[in-house]
Protein backbone atom coordinates (compact mmCIF):
# COMPACT_ATOMS: atom_id res chain seq x y z
CA UNK A 1 0.00 0.00 0.00
CA UNK A 2 1.09 3.60 -0.52
CA UNK A 3 2.79 5.48 2.27
CA UNK A 4 0.05 7.96 3.25
CA UNK A 5 2.60 10.72 3.85
CA UNK A 6 3.08 10.82 0.05
CA UNK A 7 -0.39 12.36 -0.18
CA UNK A 8 -0.02 14.90 2.62
CA UNK A 9 -1.24 12.61 5.42
CA UNK A 10 0.00 13.14 8.96
CA UNK A 11 0.56 10.19 11.24
CA UNK A 12 -1.57 9.85 14.38
CA UNK A 13 -0.96 7.62 17.38
CA UNK A 14 -4.54 6.41 17.22
CA UNK A 15 -7.97 7.43 16.00
CA UNK A 16 -8.91 10.48 18.11
CA UNK A 17 -12.54 9.42 18.39
CA UNK A 18 -14.10 6.26 19.82
CA UNK A 19 -16.43 4.65 17.31
CA UNK A 20 -18.95 1.85 17.54
CA UNK A 21 -20.09 -0.24 14.59
CA UNK A 22 -23.74 0.36 13.65
CA UNK A 23 -24.23 -1.57 10.41
CA UNK A 24 -22.64 -2.51 7.12
CA UNK A 25 -24.06 -0.54 4.21
CA UNK A 26 -22.24 -2.52 1.57
CA UNK A 27 -20.53 -5.86 1.99
CA UNK A 28 -19.30 -8.84 0.10
CA UNK A 29 -17.56 -11.42 2.28
CA UNK A 30 -16.75 -8.67 4.71
CA UNK A 31 -17.72 -5.01 4.82
CA UNK A 32 -16.87 -2.47 2.14
CA UNK A 33 -18.77 0.47 3.60
CA UNK A 34 -19.93 0.61 7.21
CA UNK A 35 -21.75 3.09 9.42
CA UNK A 36 -20.25 3.84 12.82
CA UNK A 37 -21.25 6.28 15.53
CA UNK A 38 -19.22 8.18 18.08
CA UNK A 39 -20.01 8.41 21.77
CA UNK A 40 -21.72 11.75 21.18
CA UNK A 41 -23.91 10.30 18.43
CA UNK A 42 -22.11 11.58 15.35
CA UNK A 43 -22.15 9.38 12.26
CA UNK A 44 -18.92 8.19 10.64
CA UNK A 45 -18.38 5.99 7.60
CA UNK A 46 -15.68 3.35 7.25
CA UNK A 47 -14.92 3.05 3.55
CA UNK A 48 -12.56 0.28 2.37
CA UNK A 49 -9.96 1.55 -0.12
CA UNK A 50 -6.87 -0.68 -0.21
CA UNK A 51 -5.05 -3.68 1.24
CA UNK A 52 -1.76 -5.56 1.31
CA UNK A 53 -0.68 -8.86 2.85
CA UNK A 54 -0.90 -7.49 6.38
CA UNK A 55 -3.77 -5.04 6.61
CA UNK A 56 -6.83 -3.47 5.06
CA UNK A 57 -6.97 0.29 4.68
CA UNK A 58 -10.11 2.28 5.49
CA UNK A 59 -11.04 5.92 5.09
CA UNK A 60 -12.97 7.12 8.13
CA UNK A 61 -15.21 10.06 7.25
CA UNK A 62 -17.43 12.11 9.55
CA UNK A 63 -20.77 12.21 7.75
CA UNK A 64 -23.77 14.07 9.18
CA UNK A 65 -26.87 11.91 9.06
CA UNK A 66 -28.75 14.04 6.49
CA UNK A 67 -25.76 13.65 4.13
CA UNK A 68 -25.77 9.91 4.66
CA UNK A 69 -29.52 9.70 3.99
CA UNK A 70 -29.09 11.83 0.89
CA UNK A 71 -26.67 9.17 -0.37
CA UNK A 72 -28.88 6.30 0.74
CA UNK A 73 -31.87 7.60 -1.23
CA UNK A 74 -29.70 8.03 -4.31
CA UNK A 75 -29.52 11.83 -4.31
CA UNK A 76 -25.73 11.96 -4.02
CA UNK A 77 -22.97 9.49 -4.72
CA UNK A 78 -20.33 7.92 -2.53
CA UNK A 79 -17.49 9.84 -4.12
CA UNK A 80 -19.13 13.15 -3.18
CA UNK A 81 -19.70 11.92 0.35
CA UNK A 82 -15.96 11.32 0.79
CA UNK A 83 -14.20 13.89 -1.39
CA UNK A 84 -16.57 16.71 -0.37
CA UNK A 85 -16.81 15.67 3.25
CA UNK A 86 -17.72 18.48 5.61
CA UNK A 87 -14.44 18.38 7.60
CA UNK A 88 -12.26 18.59 4.48
CA UNK A 89 -10.12 15.77 5.85
CA UNK A 90 -10.49 12.06 6.48
CA UNK A 91 -8.81 9.59 8.80
CA UNK A 92 -6.89 6.75 7.21
CA UNK A 93 -6.88 3.59 9.29
CA UNK A 94 -5.03 0.33 8.65
CA UNK A 95 -6.64 -2.67 10.39
CA UNK A 96 -5.11 -6.13 10.59
CA UNK A 97 -6.91 -9.47 10.20
CA UNK A 98 -8.39 -9.16 13.69
CA UNK A 99 -9.53 -5.56 13.05
CA UNK A 100 -6.78 -4.20 15.32
CA UNK A 101 -5.25 -0.79 14.53
CA UNK A 102 -2.02 -1.13 12.54
CA UNK A 103 -1.65 2.52 11.50
CA UNK A 104 -3.54 5.80 11.62
CA UNK A 105 -3.25 9.10 9.74
CA UNK A 106 -5.33 12.07 8.79
CA UNK A 107 -5.24 13.57 5.33
CA UNK A 108 -6.96 16.30 3.36
CA UNK A 109 -9.73 14.71 1.30
CA UNK A 110 -8.61 16.72 -1.73
CA UNK A 111 -5.21 14.93 -1.71
CA UNK A 112 -6.50 11.35 -1.71
CA UNK A 113 -5.27 9.17 -4.60
CA UNK A 114 -7.85 8.63 -7.34
CA UNK A 115 -8.01 4.87 -6.76
CA UNK A 116 -8.85 5.50 -3.09
CA UNK A 117 -12.10 7.15 -4.17
CA UNK A 118 -15.25 5.69 -5.73
CA UNK A 119 -15.85 6.38 -9.42
CA UNK A 120 -17.72 9.53 -10.41
CA UNK A 121 -20.73 7.39 -11.31
CA UNK A 122 -20.50 5.18 -8.23
CA UNK A 123 -23.78 3.63 -7.22
CA UNK A 124 -25.39 3.32 -3.85
CA UNK A 125 -26.10 -0.05 -2.27
CA UNK A 126 -29.84 -0.24 -2.90
CA UNK A 127 -30.40 -3.60 -1.28
CA UNK A 128 -28.62 -2.88 1.99
CA UNK A 129 -29.68 0.63 2.89
CA UNK A 130 -32.42 0.09 5.44
CA UNK A 131 -31.29 -0.27 9.02
CA UNK A 132 -33.14 -3.10 10.74
CA UNK A 133 -35.89 -1.77 12.97
CA UNK A 134 -35.93 1.74 11.50
CA UNK A 135 -37.52 3.59 8.62
CA UNK A 136 -35.52 6.70 7.83
CA UNK A 137 -36.84 9.57 5.76
CA UNK A 138 -34.54 12.11 4.14
CA UNK A 139 -36.04 15.62 3.99
CA UNK A 140 -34.71 17.93 1.30
CA UNK A 141 -37.04 20.84 1.83
CA UNK A 142 -37.72 23.60 4.33
CA UNK A 143 -40.86 22.50 6.14
CA UNK A 144 -43.25 24.75 7.97
CA UNK A 145 -44.96 23.73 11.19
CA UNK A 146 -47.87 22.09 9.38
CA UNK A 147 -45.58 19.95 7.22
CA UNK A 148 -43.63 18.96 10.31
CA UNK A 149 -46.78 17.66 11.94
CA UNK A 150 -48.38 16.18 8.81
CA UNK A 151 -45.70 13.87 7.44
CA UNK A 152 -45.10 11.75 10.56
CA UNK A 153 -48.86 11.52 11.21
CA UNK A 154 -49.59 10.32 7.69
CA UNK A 155 -46.70 7.90 7.64
CA UNK A 156 -47.79 6.37 10.94
CA UNK A 157 -51.42 6.10 9.78
CA UNK A 158 -50.40 4.41 6.52
CA UNK A 159 -48.16 2.09 8.51
CA UNK A 160 -51.05 1.30 10.88
CA UNK A 161 -53.15 0.22 7.89
CA UNK A 162 -50.31 -2.11 6.88
CA UNK A 163 -50.12 -3.70 10.32
CA UNK A 164 -53.66 -4.93 9.61
CA UNK A 165 -53.89 -5.40 5.84
CA UNK A 166 -50.37 -5.13 4.45
CA UNK A 167 -47.65 -7.72 3.90
CA UNK A 168 -46.77 -9.27 7.26
CA UNK A 169 -49.84 -7.65 8.84
CA UNK A 170 -52.76 -9.31 10.58
CA UNK A 171 -56.20 -7.71 11.00
CA UNK A 172 -57.05 -10.18 13.78
CA UNK A 173 -60.40 -9.12 15.23
CA UNK A 174 -60.20 -5.41 14.48
CA UNK A 175 -63.63 -3.95 13.92
CA UNK A 176 -63.84 -0.94 11.61
CA UNK A 177 -67.57 -0.28 11.71
CA UNK A 178 -67.39 3.50 12.00
CA UNK A 179 -69.64 5.95 10.27
CA UNK A 180 -66.86 7.22 8.10
CA UNK A 181 -67.77 10.74 7.14
CA UNK A 182 -65.69 13.10 9.28
CA UNK A 183 -61.99 13.78 9.67
CA UNK A 184 -61.71 12.89 13.34
CA UNK A 185 -63.35 9.55 12.63
CA UNK A 186 -60.55 8.64 10.24
CA UNK A 187 -58.03 9.54 12.93
CA UNK A 188 -59.81 7.12 15.27
CA UNK A 189 -60.00 4.52 12.51
CA UNK A 190 -56.22 4.42 12.02
CA UNK A 191 -55.73 4.52 15.79
CA UNK A 192 -57.85 1.36 16.01
CA UNK A 193 -55.59 -0.35 13.49
CA UNK A 194 -52.51 0.85 15.37
CA UNK A 195 -53.58 -0.54 18.74
CA UNK A 196 -54.81 -3.74 17.08
CA UNK A 197 -51.20 -4.56 16.17
CA UNK A 198 -49.01 -6.30 18.75
CA UNK A 199 -46.59 -3.84 20.42
CA UNK A 200 -43.56 -5.23 18.56
CA UNK A 201 -45.19 -4.43 15.21
CA UNK A 202 -46.22 -0.86 16.03
CA UNK A 203 -44.32 2.15 14.69
CA UNK A 204 -43.35 5.35 16.46
CA UNK A 205 -41.41 8.49 15.67
CA UNK A 206 -37.90 7.96 17.05
CA UNK A 207 -35.92 11.01 15.91
CA UNK A 208 -36.43 14.24 14.02
CA UNK A 209 -34.23 16.91 12.50
CA UNK A 210 -36.15 19.45 10.48
CA UNK A 211 -33.29 21.57 9.22
CA UNK A 212 -32.95 21.44 5.43
CA UNK A 213 -31.64 18.87 4.72
CA UNK A 214 -33.11 17.01 7.64
CA UNK A 215 -34.44 13.59 8.50
CA UNK A 216 -37.10 11.62 10.31
CA UNK A 217 -36.54 8.25 11.90
CA UNK A 218 -39.38 5.86 12.74
CA UNK A 219 -39.05 2.72 14.82
CA UNK A 220 -40.77 0.01 12.76
CA UNK A 221 -41.19 -3.72 12.26
CA UNK A 222 -38.99 -4.32 9.17
CA UNK A 223 -41.48 -6.55 7.31
CA UNK A 224 -44.34 -4.06 7.74
CA UNK A 225 -42.18 -1.11 6.66
CA UNK A 226 -40.91 -3.09 3.66
CA UNK A 227 -44.50 -3.90 2.66
CA UNK A 228 -45.43 -0.22 2.90
CA UNK A 229 -42.51 0.77 0.66
CA UNK A 230 -43.57 -1.94 -1.80
CA UNK A 231 -47.12 -0.53 -1.83
CA UNK A 232 -45.77 2.95 -2.58
CA UNK A 233 -43.80 1.51 -5.50
CA UNK A 234 -46.92 -0.25 -6.75
CA UNK A 235 -48.94 2.96 -6.35
CA UNK A 236 -46.39 4.93 -8.37
CA UNK A 237 -46.63 2.30 -11.11
CA UNK A 238 -50.41 1.90 -11.06
CA UNK A 239 -51.41 5.41 -9.99
CA UNK A 240 -53.85 6.00 -12.85
CA UNK A 241 -55.83 2.79 -12.33
CA UNK A 242 -55.80 3.12 -8.54
CA UNK A 243 -57.02 6.73 -8.56
CA UNK A 244 -59.68 5.98 -11.16
CA UNK A 245 -61.03 3.07 -9.08
CA UNK A 246 -60.92 5.07 -5.84
CA UNK A 247 -62.71 8.05 -7.41
CA UNK A 248 -65.52 5.79 -8.63
CA UNK A 249 -65.72 3.97 -5.29
CA UNK A 250 -65.86 7.23 -3.35
CA UNK A 251 -68.69 8.53 -5.51
CA UNK A 252 -70.57 5.25 -5.08
CA UNK A 253 -70.07 5.08 -1.31
CA UNK A 254 -71.36 8.67 -0.99
CA UNK A 255 -74.47 7.82 -3.01
CA UNK A 256 -73.45 10.00 -5.95
CA UNK A 257 -72.92 7.20 -8.46
CA UNK A 258 -75.25 4.41 -9.38
CA UNK A 259 -73.02 2.89 -12.06
CA UNK A 260 -71.52 0.50 -9.51
CA UNK A 261 -73.48 -2.17 -7.69
CA UNK A 262 -72.46 -3.50 -4.29
CA UNK A 263 -71.02 -6.57 -6.04
CA UNK A 264 -68.96 -4.59 -8.56
CA UNK A 265 -67.90 -2.13 -5.85
CA UNK A 266 -66.60 -5.02 -3.75
CA UNK A 267 -64.75 -6.38 -6.77
CA UNK A 268 -63.24 -2.96 -7.36
CA UNK A 269 -62.07 -2.69 -3.71
CA UNK A 270 -60.44 -6.11 -3.92
CA UNK A 271 -58.86 -5.36 -7.31
CA UNK A 272 -57.50 -1.99 -6.14
CA UNK A 273 -56.05 -3.57 -3.01
CA UNK A 274 -54.44 -6.23 -5.18
CA UNK A 275 -52.81 -3.51 -7.29
CA UNK A 276 -51.33 -2.08 -4.09
CA UNK A 277 -50.32 -5.40 -2.54
CA UNK A 278 -52.71 -5.24 0.42
CA UNK A 279 -55.47 -7.65 1.50
CA UNK A 280 -58.76 -6.49 -0.04
CA UNK A 281 -60.87 -9.44 1.10
CA UNK A 282 -59.79 -8.90 4.69
CA UNK A 283 -60.53 -5.20 4.42
CA UNK A 284 -64.09 -5.86 3.23
CA UNK A 285 -64.61 -8.42 6.00
CA UNK A 286 -63.38 -6.15 8.79
CA UNK A 287 -65.06 -2.99 7.45
CA UNK A 288 -68.46 -4.64 7.95
CA UNK A 289 -69.77 -3.21 4.66
CA UNK A 290 -68.49 -2.61 1.15
CA UNK A 291 -69.27 1.10 1.54
CA UNK A 292 -67.05 1.34 4.63
CA UNK A 293 -64.31 -0.65 2.89
CA UNK A 294 -64.42 1.79 -0.02
CA UNK A 295 -64.08 4.78 2.32
CA UNK A 296 -61.24 3.19 4.28
CA UNK A 297 -59.46 2.31 1.04
CA UNK A 298 -59.85 5.89 -0.21
CA UNK A 299 -58.42 7.21 3.04
CA UNK A 300 -55.48 4.81 2.86
CA UNK A 301 -54.78 5.68 -0.78
CA UNK A 302 -54.86 9.40 0.04
CA UNK A 303 -52.08 8.85 2.59
CA UNK A 304 -50.15 6.53 0.30
CA UNK A 305 -50.37 9.14 -2.45
CA UNK A 306 -49.08 11.78 -0.03
CA UNK A 307 -46.00 9.67 0.78
CA UNK A 308 -45.45 8.83 -2.91
CA UNK A 309 -45.79 12.47 -4.01
CA UNK A 310 -43.31 13.65 -1.38
CA UNK A 311 -40.84 11.07 -2.62
CA UNK A 312 -41.37 11.82 -6.31
CA UNK A 313 -40.97 15.54 -5.73
CA UNK A 314 -37.76 14.94 -3.71
CA UNK A 315 -39.31 16.59 -0.66
CA UNK A 316 -39.26 13.65 1.77
CA UNK A 317 -37.67 10.42 0.57
CA UNK A 318 -38.07 7.06 2.26
CA UNK A 319 -34.74 5.27 2.60
CA UNK A 320 -35.07 1.90 0.86
CA UNK A 321 -37.86 2.93 -1.51
CA UNK A 322 -35.48 2.66 -4.47
CA UNK A 323 -34.56 -0.96 -3.71
Amino acid at each position, binding site marked *: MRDPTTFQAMRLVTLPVTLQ*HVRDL*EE*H*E*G*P*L*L*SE*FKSNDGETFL*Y*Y*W*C*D*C*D*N*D*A*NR*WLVVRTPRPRLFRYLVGKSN*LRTLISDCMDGFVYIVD*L*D*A*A*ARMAGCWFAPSSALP*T*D*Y*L*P*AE*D*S*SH*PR*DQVTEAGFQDVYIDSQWDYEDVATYPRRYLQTYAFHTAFGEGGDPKKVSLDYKLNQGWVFHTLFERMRVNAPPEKRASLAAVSFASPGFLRFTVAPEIAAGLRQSIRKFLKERKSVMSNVTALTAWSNGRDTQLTEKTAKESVVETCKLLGVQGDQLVTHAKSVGNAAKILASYVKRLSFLADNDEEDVAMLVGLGE
Partner: protein
Amino acid sequence: MPTTPTFKYATQHQSVDPCPEDEHAPTTRVAYRFVFLPIGPSSFLPVPLTPRPPGIPPPRRNNQEVRCAHFALSMYDTEENATKKYNSLRKNNPNLHQSMGSHLAVLTLQVQHGVQSSPAKDGHFRIHEYAGVDLAPLATLVKDLTAVAP
Protein backbone atom coordinates in the same frame (compact mmCIF):
# COMPACT_ATOMS: atom_id res chain seq x y z
CA MET B 1 -28.65 -45.41 8.40
CA PRO B 2 -27.35 -42.34 6.56
CA THR B 3 -25.33 -40.02 8.76
CA THR B 4 -25.94 -36.27 8.85
CA PRO B 5 -22.95 -34.49 7.31
CA THR B 6 -21.02 -32.11 9.53
CA PHE B 7 -20.04 -28.66 8.41
CA LYS B 8 -16.50 -27.63 7.57
CA TYR B 9 -16.63 -24.85 10.18
CA ALA B 10 -18.97 -26.59 12.64
CA THR B 11 -16.90 -25.53 15.65
CA GLN B 12 -17.13 -21.86 14.67
CA HIS B 13 -20.86 -22.22 13.89
CA GLN B 14 -21.48 -22.92 17.58
CA SER B 15 -20.57 -19.34 18.47
CA VAL B 16 -23.09 -17.86 15.99
CA ASP B 17 -26.06 -20.12 16.56
CA PRO B 18 -28.29 -20.82 14.64
CA CYS B 19 -25.92 -21.52 11.78
CA PRO B 20 -26.49 -22.25 8.94
CA GLU B 21 -29.86 -20.53 8.85
CA ASP B 22 -32.94 -22.70 8.21
CA GLU B 23 -33.52 -21.56 4.64
CA HIS B 24 -30.28 -23.17 3.43
CA ALA B 25 -30.62 -26.51 1.61
CA PRO B 26 -28.41 -28.87 -0.38
CA THR B 27 -28.91 -28.55 -4.13
CA THR B 28 -27.15 -28.91 -7.47
CA ARG B 29 -26.39 -25.59 -9.13
CA VAL B 30 -23.87 -24.00 -11.49
CA ALA B 31 -22.08 -21.32 -9.50
CA TYR B 32 -19.78 -18.40 -10.29
CA ARG B 33 -17.22 -17.04 -7.82
CA PHE B 34 -14.62 -14.27 -7.75
CA VAL B 35 -11.16 -15.83 -7.44
CA PHE B 36 -7.44 -15.06 -7.30
CA LEU B 37 -5.04 -16.57 -9.83
CA PRO B 38 -3.90 -19.28 -9.80
CA ILE B 39 -7.20 -20.76 -8.63
CA GLY B 40 -6.53 -22.60 -5.37
CA PRO B 41 -7.78 -23.04 -1.81
CA SER B 42 -6.96 -19.40 -1.02
CA SER B 43 -9.90 -18.35 -3.20
CA PHE B 44 -12.30 -20.40 -1.09
CA LEU B 45 -11.62 -19.10 2.42
CA PRO B 46 -14.45 -17.76 4.56
CA VAL B 47 -14.05 -14.27 6.05
CA PRO B 48 -12.89 -15.08 9.60
CA LEU B 49 -10.33 -17.71 8.62
CA THR B 50 -6.78 -16.50 9.31
CA PRO B 51 -3.86 -16.54 8.84
CA ARG B 52 -4.11 -16.32 5.09
CA PRO B 53 -1.60 -17.86 2.68
CA PRO B 54 1.18 -15.54 1.41
CA GLY B 55 -0.09 -13.15 -1.25
CA ILE B 56 -3.68 -13.25 0.01
CA PRO B 57 -4.76 -10.15 1.95
CA PRO B 58 -6.33 -10.44 5.38
CA PRO B 59 -10.13 -10.52 5.57
CA ARG B 60 -11.88 -7.16 5.44
CA ARG B 61 -13.04 -6.50 8.97
CA ASN B 62 -13.67 -3.24 10.81
CA ASN B 63 -15.28 -4.61 13.97
CA GLN B 64 -15.21 -7.75 16.08
CA GLU B 65 -18.62 -9.05 15.10
CA VAL B 66 -18.69 -12.52 13.56
CA ARG B 67 -21.84 -13.66 11.82
CA CYS B 68 -22.94 -17.02 10.48
CA ALA B 69 -22.74 -15.71 6.91
CA HIS B 70 -19.02 -15.06 7.40
CA PHE B 71 -18.41 -18.83 7.37
CA ALA B 72 -20.14 -19.25 4.02
CA LEU B 73 -18.76 -18.64 0.53
CA SER B 74 -20.44 -16.11 -1.78
CA MET B 75 -21.44 -17.29 -5.24
CA TYR B 76 -23.60 -16.06 -8.14
CA ASP B 77 -26.08 -17.99 -10.24
CA THR B 78 -25.01 -16.67 -13.65
CA GLU B 79 -21.94 -15.19 -15.29
CA GLU B 80 -23.96 -12.09 -16.13
CA ASN B 81 -25.07 -11.52 -12.52
CA ALA B 82 -21.55 -12.10 -11.19
CA THR B 83 -20.02 -9.68 -13.69
CA LYS B 84 -22.68 -7.06 -13.05
CA LYS B 85 -22.12 -7.24 -9.29
CA TYR B 86 -18.33 -7.15 -9.61
CA ASN B 87 -18.48 -4.06 -11.82
CA SER B 88 -20.90 -2.37 -9.46
CA LEU B 89 -18.64 -3.08 -6.47
CA ARG B 90 -15.56 -2.01 -8.41
CA LYS B 91 -17.10 1.36 -9.23
CA ASN B 92 -17.41 2.01 -5.53
CA ASN B 93 -14.07 0.43 -4.59
CA PRO B 94 -11.53 0.65 -7.45
CA ASN B 95 -8.92 -1.51 -5.65
CA LEU B 96 -11.41 -4.27 -5.00
CA HIS B 97 -9.56 -6.85 -7.12
CA GLN B 98 -6.79 -6.88 -4.51
CA SER B 99 -9.16 -8.00 -1.78
CA MET B 100 -11.69 -10.10 -3.66
CA GLY B 101 -9.78 -11.55 -6.58
CA SER B 102 -9.59 -10.37 -10.16
CA HIS B 103 -11.06 -13.30 -12.07
CA LEU B 104 -14.32 -15.20 -12.40
CA ALA B 105 -14.47 -18.97 -12.05
CA VAL B 106 -17.32 -21.42 -12.58
CA LEU B 107 -18.05 -24.71 -10.83
CA THR B 108 -20.98 -27.07 -10.39
CA LEU B 109 -22.11 -27.40 -6.80
CA GLN B 110 -23.55 -30.77 -5.81
CA VAL B 111 -25.77 -31.73 -2.90
CA GLN B 112 -22.81 -33.39 -1.16
CA HIS B 113 -20.88 -30.09 -1.11
CA GLY B 114 -23.01 -28.31 1.46
CA VAL B 115 -26.16 -26.27 1.98
CA GLN B 116 -27.00 -23.21 -0.08
CA SER B 117 -29.24 -20.19 0.31
CA SER B 118 -31.61 -19.37 -2.56
CA PRO B 119 -30.22 -16.84 -5.03
CA ALA B 120 -31.26 -13.27 -4.22
CA LYS B 121 -32.57 -10.82 -6.83
CA ASP B 122 -29.00 -10.03 -7.88
CA GLY B 123 -28.16 -13.73 -8.21
CA HIS B 124 -26.06 -13.86 -5.04
CA PHE B 125 -26.23 -16.90 -2.77
CA ARG B 126 -24.08 -18.54 -0.12
CA ILE B 127 -22.86 -22.08 0.48
CA HIS B 128 -21.88 -23.52 3.85
CA GLU B 129 -19.51 -26.34 2.95
CA TYR B 130 -19.59 -29.78 4.54
CA ALA B 131 -16.45 -31.10 6.23
CA GLY B 132 -13.91 -32.52 3.82
CA VAL B 133 -15.18 -30.57 0.81
CA ASP B 134 -12.59 -28.79 -1.35
CA LEU B 135 -14.22 -26.72 -4.08
CA ALA B 136 -11.02 -25.27 -5.56
CA PRO B 137 -10.20 -28.23 -7.88
CA LEU B 138 -13.72 -28.06 -9.32
CA ALA B 139 -13.41 -24.43 -10.40
CA THR B 140 -12.42 -23.44 -13.90
CA LEU B 141 -11.46 -20.00 -15.10
CA VAL B 142 -14.08 -17.99 -17.00
CA LYS B 143 -12.52 -14.56 -17.49
CA ASP B 144 -10.49 -11.66 -16.16
CA LEU B 145 -12.98 -9.31 -14.51
CA THR B 146 -10.59 -6.36 -14.59
CA ALA B 147 -9.97 -6.52 -18.35
CA VAL B 148 -12.87 -4.18 -19.03
CA ALA B 149 -13.56 -0.94 -17.17
CA PRO B 150 -16.61 -1.28 -14.89
